[in-house]
């Protein structure tokens, strides 16, 4: 098993006492899987991703990657944050190269690598632009190129396409699928877009809110991964099942708070 999450619990201390954000999370992910975690806003998705990234430590339980317990952040895991995290004083090219620079890659190689991934996300023309000159979707694509440039074993993404328009989103989907099929990359992606999850992943974890728990694990078997598959009844079945699940738990959560 490549990525294992064992009985993970996460509490935050607040004024009203301990807030249980994640409760008894268990996940097992093989190398090369494309996993989506879906859940309502506030269900602890970002918090879960931070535990995997090693940016935060679980209250109890553990995360293991390749059998080793995750204790700190590191470049073996590529991360695309929910919010824009480009360095504002670096241009797009420098942003994309920065991880490689930190990892000691010589100038020529990192230039070529960054250029390759900028081309892949369609931003070659903007290599010299500053982040403030880009749209939100373009910034996110730079962040993806930056994460990929380090050739990580696993790519962690927190709602990476939330800010994109439908067409850019679709081309990013195609790109992600192509990347995933060509390489042995493991992808763990967070989203609240149910269709996106069904279309991209081979397995979905549906999270319930307050506290965040795994409500259901769903293996996705689509006949193919082209856009036409979205009109297929299998696709609709998966989507409707997931929607229904989230809706039910959404209502429960509201009832629990009230």
């Amino acid at each position, binding site marked *: 098993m490549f990525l294992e999450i064992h009985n993970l619990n996460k509490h935050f201390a607040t004024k009203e006492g301990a807030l249980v954000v994640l409760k008894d999370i268990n996940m097992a992910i093989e190398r090369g899987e494309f996993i989506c975690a879906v859940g309502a806003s506030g269900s602890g998705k970002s918090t879960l991703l931070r535990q995997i990234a090693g*940016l935060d430590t679980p209250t109890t339980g553990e995360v293991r990657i390749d059998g080793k317990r995750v204790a700190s952040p590191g470049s073996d895991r590529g991360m695309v*944050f929910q919010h824009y*995290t480009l360095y*504002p004083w670096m241009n797009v090219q420098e942003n994309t190269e*920065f991880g490689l620079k930190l990892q000691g890659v010589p100038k020529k190689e990192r230039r070529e690598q960054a250029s390759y991934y900028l081309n892949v996300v369609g931003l070659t023309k903007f290599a010299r632009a500053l982040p403030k000159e880009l749209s939100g979707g373009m910034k996110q694509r730079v962040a993806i190129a930056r994460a990929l440039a*380090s050739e990580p074993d696993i790519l962690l993404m927190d709602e990476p396409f939330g800010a994109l328009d439908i067409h850019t989103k679709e081309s990013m989907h195609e790109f992600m699928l192509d990347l995933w099929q060509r390489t042995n990359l493991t992808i763990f992606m967070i989203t609240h877009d149910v269709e996106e999850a069904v279309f991209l992943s081979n397995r979905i974890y549906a999270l319930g809110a307050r506290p965040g728990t795994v409500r259901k694990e769903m293996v996705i078997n689509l006949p193919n991964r082209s856009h036409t598959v979205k009109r297929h009844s299998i696709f609709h079945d998966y989507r409707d099942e997931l929607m229904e699940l989230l809706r039910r738990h959404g209502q429960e959560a509201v009832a629990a708070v009230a």
Partner: protein
Amino acid sequence: MSQSVKHRSIRSLIKPKTMRPTVFWRLTEDIPKSLSTVLMVTSIALPLILWWLVTTLGNIEPTFLPSPADVLEAFGRLWSTRELLKDTVASLWRVGVGFLFAALLSIPVGVLMGSFPSIRALLEPLFGLMRYMPAPAFIPLLILYLGIGEEPKIMLIFIGVFFFNSLMVMDTVKFVPKDLIEATYMLGGTRWEALTQVILPHVLPGIIDSCRINLAAAWQLVIVSELIAANEGLGRRISVAGRFLRTDEIFVGLIVIGVIGLTFDLLFQYLLRVSCRWASQKR
């Protein structure tokens, strides 16, 4: 979710509002360049004209309020004897040395305080306290410890700048998004690399700005320090002129001090613009 709550319209209570277009009262937006130029010229020219009118029409004692012409003449006099130049150089030298030392120390200290909560906890209470002790109140002590040469004057500027600048630099570090530092860790960066390659460039514009503001404070303190004991300096020039009722020379001193200060300010603003293009508001 909230079907049970009845909703009563309060439309009758709502007064619709729209904005009227304006040029002069634009809030934070740019105004036309021509208007801006006119207003900026007015800002200096209007007081000058008022001054000139009051002194020519008002029949005022020149030792009380000299006319612009008197001041210009005094300027020529002090310039030709090279006294003004000597005074200016003396004051500039004190500010330069005192401010440079204070800045060189306070920038790293401030960055460390902002970056490491441990160092912050260690230093902030002391610095916070020192900041509220007015630097001029240290003058008697400085004279006692360092005599009346250049050392107490430079030390005064150092004290007046160091604590303020440290705390202001510390504050700029607060505005570095946490995500940006975490992204650096995820790219394989160490804490040291995050500090030197992410935090430092991010706070550079803030540092330049806080130095700009504190240079103004240093410039004030040098004048104060020279009021006590000095052989030359712009502050000294003013206090001597006061003793001999050379009001025109007081004005010369004040104007020179103001112009030099403004020049520094503009230089820092220019430095900020060229070194941190990414941080400017305009695209």
